[in-house]
């Protein structure tokens, strides 16, 4: 059988706990810094405004388009090619006094006068208020997801697990946001959906490791918690890599074949998957130790008093 990780020895991940925490803290601070200084390049979904995609039969005369639109009284217009030389993206801010819904016709009218063979592929117009609401709902969704996960994990495991997983998770989200801010990639609704999916996906990772930790605590009675965690991570390592690989294959397919519309979504997922591995192994687990996880937290005292119990906690 083919095996990527036939690990005979347990890797002492926890020994590197301090180092990995430092790295995490570094990337985290970098992300916060980026968010703070560059800010997210919010798409029209959140800021309001108009984005138009038009297609020309020949190569698009970008400069002419820019001049023509400026002449209609719009400032801060972004006109750029995307995908091919025939496709043009036009970004217009909200403008006072103009019923913004009419913007697209006005612009198309202007463009058609100079080049009649231009066709409209897509228009997105979003009012300022709607954008604001979406933004707030997005933030609310993030909080709600985190809260839901904390409650579920606290119920299924123990509060230390819930807190660790959530911190690791938020760490992933902040890093994705930070990278989007740093590179000024466009952040729109689909990217937000991607990030929220990552939130679920990344906690999934932590849960698989946690599950093994819980199991090991019950079976490996004489080991220290630190060793138990190391062994849990090592034994799930193979699965972690393969699962991520297969998900990443799908995401790569989206990145390559999905076109412009799915590009940033796939990008957010890619970053999320990379950091999802890292954070479940090297952020969530050391945090468990730091929060002072003990065997007693996972095994109720009453169980230990029972007679005739086997090493694995079963009673036969």
């Amino acid at each position, binding site marked *: *059988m083919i095996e990527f990780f036939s690990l005979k020895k347990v890797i002492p991940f926890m020994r590197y706990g301090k180092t990995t925490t430092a790295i995490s803290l570094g990337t985290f601070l970098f992300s916060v810094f980026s968010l703070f200084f560059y800010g997210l390049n919010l798409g029209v979904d959140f800021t309001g405004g108009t984005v138009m*995609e038009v*297609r020309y039969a020949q190569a698009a005369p970008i400069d002419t388009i820019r001049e023509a639109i400026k002449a209609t009284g719009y400032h801060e217009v972004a006109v750029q090619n995307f995908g091919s030389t025939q496709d043009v993206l036009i970004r217009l801010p909200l403008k*006072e*006094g*103009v*019923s*913004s*819904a*009419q913007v*697209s*016709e006005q612009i198309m009218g202007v463009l058609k006068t100079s080049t009649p063979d231009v*066709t*409209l*592929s897509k*228009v*997105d*117009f*979003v*009012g300022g*208020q*709607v954008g604001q609401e*979406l933004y707030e*709902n*997005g933030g*609310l*969704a993030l909080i*709600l*997801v985190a809260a839901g*996960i904390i409650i579920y994990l606290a119920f299924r495991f123990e509060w230390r697990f819930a807190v660790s997983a959530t911190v690791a998770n938020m760490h992933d989200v902040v890093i994705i946001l930070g990278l989007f801010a740093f590179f000024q990639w466009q952040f729109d*609704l*689909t990217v*937000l*959906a991607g990030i*929220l*999916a990552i*939130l*679920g*996906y990344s*906690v*999934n990772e932590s849960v*698989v490791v946690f*599950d093994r930790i819980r199991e090991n605590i019950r079976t490996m009675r004489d080991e220290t918690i630190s060793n138990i965690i190391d062994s849990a991570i090592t*034994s799930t390592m193979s*699965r972690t890599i*393969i*699962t991520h690989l*297969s*998900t990443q*294959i*799908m*995401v*790569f*397919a*989206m990145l390559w*074949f*999905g*076109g412009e*519309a*799915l590009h940033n979504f796939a990008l957010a997922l890619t970053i999320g998957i990379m950091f999802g591995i890292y954070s479940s192994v090297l952020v969530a687990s050391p945090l468990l130790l730091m929060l002072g996880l003990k065997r007693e937290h996972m095994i109720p005292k009453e169980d230990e008093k029972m007679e005739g119990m086997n090493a694995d906690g079963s009673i036969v």
Partner: protein
Amino acid sequence: MNRYPLWKYLMIAVVLLIGVIYSVPNFFPSEPAVQLSPKVEQAIDPATMQRFEQALQAQGLTIRASENNGQQALFRFEDTDVQLKASEALKAAVGDQFVVALNLAPSTPSWLRALNANPMFLGLDLRGGVHFLMEVDMKAALDKQINRYEDEFRDFLREQDIKYLGIAREGDTVLAKFRDAASRDAAMAAFGKEYQNSLQFTALPDTNDLQASISQTAMLDIQKFALQQNITTLRKRVNELGVAEPVIQQQGANRIVVQLPGVQDTARAKEILGATATLEFRLVDEQNDPTQAQQSGRAPIGSQLYKERSGDPILLKRQVMLTGDFIIDASSGFDENSRPAVHITLDGKGATRFNKVTGENVQKLMGVVFIENKIETQEVDGQMVKTSKTTQEVINVARIQEQLGKRFQITGLDSPKEARDLALLLRAGALAAPVYIVEERTVGPSMGKENIEKGFNSNIWGFAAVVLFMVIYYRVFGVISSLALAINGFFLFALLSMIQATLTLPGLAGIALTLGMAIDANVLINERIREELRAGASPQAAINVGYERAWGTIIDSNLTTLIAGIALFLLGSGPVKGFAVVLCLGILTSMFSAVTVSRAIVNLVYGYKPRLQKLAI
């Protein structure tokens, strides 16, 4: 140990069959078709169907298939060329009574359709069209209601024989002034009885004034009514546009979503959807001089100053003889002098009322006021403030020749087109309150086609790569996992089709992501089996323990993702919501297929080999 009882295999087989049946309609291409639906709600009978068919045959067009479900008739054609010709022929034949719309009908075989197996709807981003999010101007709705109360109070007090000094609107309240406390108290008692659910009356101290304000519940009612009325009106207007399968839905407390698949002429759509126009019929004030009123800027008591189309001032009586609310039908045409005209039909109540007032006022002049609402955005103190601007114009003044009844016509319109537009708006009914577009998304048809291709391609390539990898890495178990994954895909498609979800690009991305994540459960199981084998367990025991041990982990990890999915669904809108639906359903199907279905296959492959020595994993 690794054998399922027969009923379990049968159950899985049945579920699998259902999954296949309900997912296959999505793989049939769609056919060009023409859809006919009556403008007034009525059933389409066989005779009408025959009429349609004859109209098509007269043009020498071959119908591939025809359907009639009572509310809608559908004709399928060989290609888009015939479809367009057919649409023209039908339009000419059926005239004003039916909406003729081009459609792409799914070519699902009839036996599948009989099982209610239909394909998913394609979202606008996958087939092109316009999406509008409209906000209802609730303040305007409230304003209108307050004005109505103002008028009603006058009539009411007159009827009750209570003397009053004046009634005026003050902010969001109506103020009634009285000469003495006695008449105020009488009015208060009478009002209280009449308006006990909707208004609150307070006697203002130190005066004989009475203040009426709308109660909280009544306010909510007004808003709810405005929204409902607008949805109904928009539905009728959309109908006039001739769109197949439009969507008109409420969103939140004051927003309406309108989706028009396949529509490209957004300008026309917006004009029709967004305008609020209504008519008012008022008597002309013939005693006073309008020019003088215009110069002084003050209209005589009981009159209001208007402008005619020519720009000349005209005085109309404040009291409205009839409003557009009573109009049930309006059609455009020409009058006896071949001038553009709108023929109007009133409902019973309106006809009685109009009959009475026109009878009392024969030989007097009557003006028709055309009221149009538009929304303008202005910046006030750095904030964007939307104001609805109302233009009122007298489009027609005529002497009432005789008592007017249920049917009459108005003239004085500039062009036949204007007559048509006005008739359309009147027929569709007025919006209870102005709406403005707060979000617009248009996707061209070629873009939609491209999106769907790209979305499907990324799914197929990704899936193929995952399968390849799994088969190489886990061998037989990889094949089994891949089978489970494919079945999962079918289940997901079937579920989405059953709930008639709308497939969008983010939804397609969601499918790809869920398939990628779904393999996780199988990886967990396969790794566990390997572990057990390494620890020295027999193959059969390894399979059993592997599945059992992995189950808890699968539950925990999937449920946490499900929590994220549910939160996304509750808070998301548009693409996020579509994505969330796919994510949630995908988790459920993948739990079933990864555990139960793959186990069933493993059991079939290995469970009946008692002396199993090795597993291909």
